């Protein structure tokens, strides 16, 4: 098991302690939002995740950021993303986008060689942008709605659909899990975790400022973000509910709204 094993043990203990001591404040009316029927559970889990993060992941990520220069961190990040190119390719293929899948494989070939094992994203500079695909998006593309919002232990925001998607990614297409050498594999998984957490640090302060209710803010952003990804950055527009356009006096003709009748934005 080694270092990672001990770390995970510690995390599990903390999660347990956090779970026992969980006292997330549950506002009245929790669970009335149709997109989030499990809000009471979700808020508790959100709170537990937060405690574990503050105790373990965040300090480790801060140390990582303090020790390594930015160029090295960007390189590490690129290398992990490079390993995920097959995941992008498989999911693009499953979504009926063969040319994107081909581009992902070309990126893998170019960046793994010319880009020194993925350290540099030379393919992007040559005009082949990185895809961001996973199986949750593929399910969405196939018409599956996200279902209830669901905060996963340790992993954070998700939905029922995306939880299945993650499971598939995790068991099926994540290349790190195909590494036979267990200590090497665990080390890489651990470093990837730290790398991901460290890349969130700069954004965190801003989030603290913007949100009146962090839980809701993150939930609603997650749901919007995933919908956007399912549609590859171009989702059909949701109608603004209750937009009376009071500042628009008769001068303007009634505005054309040919959006498909999607679920209204406030669920």
């Amino acid at each position, binding site marked *: 098991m080694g270092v990672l094993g001990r770390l995970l043990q510690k995390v599990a203990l903390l999660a347990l302690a956090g779970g026992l001591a969980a006292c997330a404040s549950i506002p009245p009316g929790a669970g009335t939002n149709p997109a989030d029927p499990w809000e009471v559970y979700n808020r508790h889990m959100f709170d537990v995740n937060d405690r574990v993060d503050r105790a373990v992941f965040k300090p480790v990520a801060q140390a990582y950021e303090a020790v390594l220069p930015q160029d090295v961190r960007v390189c590490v990040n690129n290398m992990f993303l490079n390993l995920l190119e097959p995941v992008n390719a498989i999911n693009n293929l499953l979504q009926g986008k063969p040319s994107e899948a081909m581009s992902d494989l070309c990126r893998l070939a170019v960046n793994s060689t010319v880009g020194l094992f993925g350290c540099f994203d030379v393919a992007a500079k040559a005009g082949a*942008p990185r895809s961001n695909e996973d199986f949750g998006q593929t399910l969405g593309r196939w018409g599956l709605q996200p279902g209830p919002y669901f905060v996963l232990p340790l992993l954070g925001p998700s939905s029922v659909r995306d939880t299945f998607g993650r499971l598939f990614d995790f068991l099926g297409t994540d290349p790190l899990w195909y590494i036979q050498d267990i200590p090497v594999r665990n080390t890489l998984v651990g470093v990837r975790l730290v790398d991901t957490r460290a890349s969130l640090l700069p954004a965190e302060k801003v989030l603290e400022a913007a949100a009146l209710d962090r839980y809701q803010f993150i939930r609603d952003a997650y749901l919007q973000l995933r919908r956007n990804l399912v549609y590859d950055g171009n989702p059909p527009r949701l109608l603004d509910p209750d937009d009376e356009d009071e500042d628009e006096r008769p001068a303007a003709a009634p505005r054309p709204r040919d959006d498909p009748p999607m679920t209204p934005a406030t669920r």
Partner: protein
Amino acid sequence: MSYKTLVTSLALMALLGAGLVHGPSASAQGTANAALSAPDALVKSLSEDVLDSIRKDPTLQAGDIARLNALVDERILPYVNFEKMTRLAVGRSWRDASPEQRQALTKEFRALLVRTYAGAVSTAKDYQVRMQPFRAEPNETDVTVRTQAVPARGEPIQLDYRLEKTGAGWKIYDVNVLGVWLVENYRNTFASEISRGGIDGLIKSLGERNKALESRKT
């Protein structure tokens, strides 16, 4: 991966599109002209001026609130419809709000956005804006302009704007970062605040949030 993009998007959303603050420059006139002609030209002009002035101004990069507020008043306000932004975020309850309450809501929401922006503005200088293809019928009065914020290193970030044609030219009323629309992201929070404490409750919460941010110092 998705959580990372999520938080990045939230941070960038706070940048209000990295495009809305725009410094004292000769191109202010150009922006004014653009506002009257085409929405994509307005967004382009605003974005470029903004980034330009952030790069030139260390006080802005440090997130100086007074300086930012002055800029917002002077330069951004003419091209952003904060009231519509607030109205859409408040939703149905806007109808029940008195003129004073509406004014207070708009003021506090604006203050929150500016404060959030202040915390993020230092990172904006590393981005370039790339316009995406724009298509709209000539008689369209409500459009989406799509852009990308391109960092020196790393992935480009989707950055879209919704604009509405008014008597005074095109005005921005919503910003989208990585698919997360600002107005929609506040809608549920505002609704639950209102269901708990009414419109005055929401005004109070926003006010308290702003005060807390003020005392924390950016």
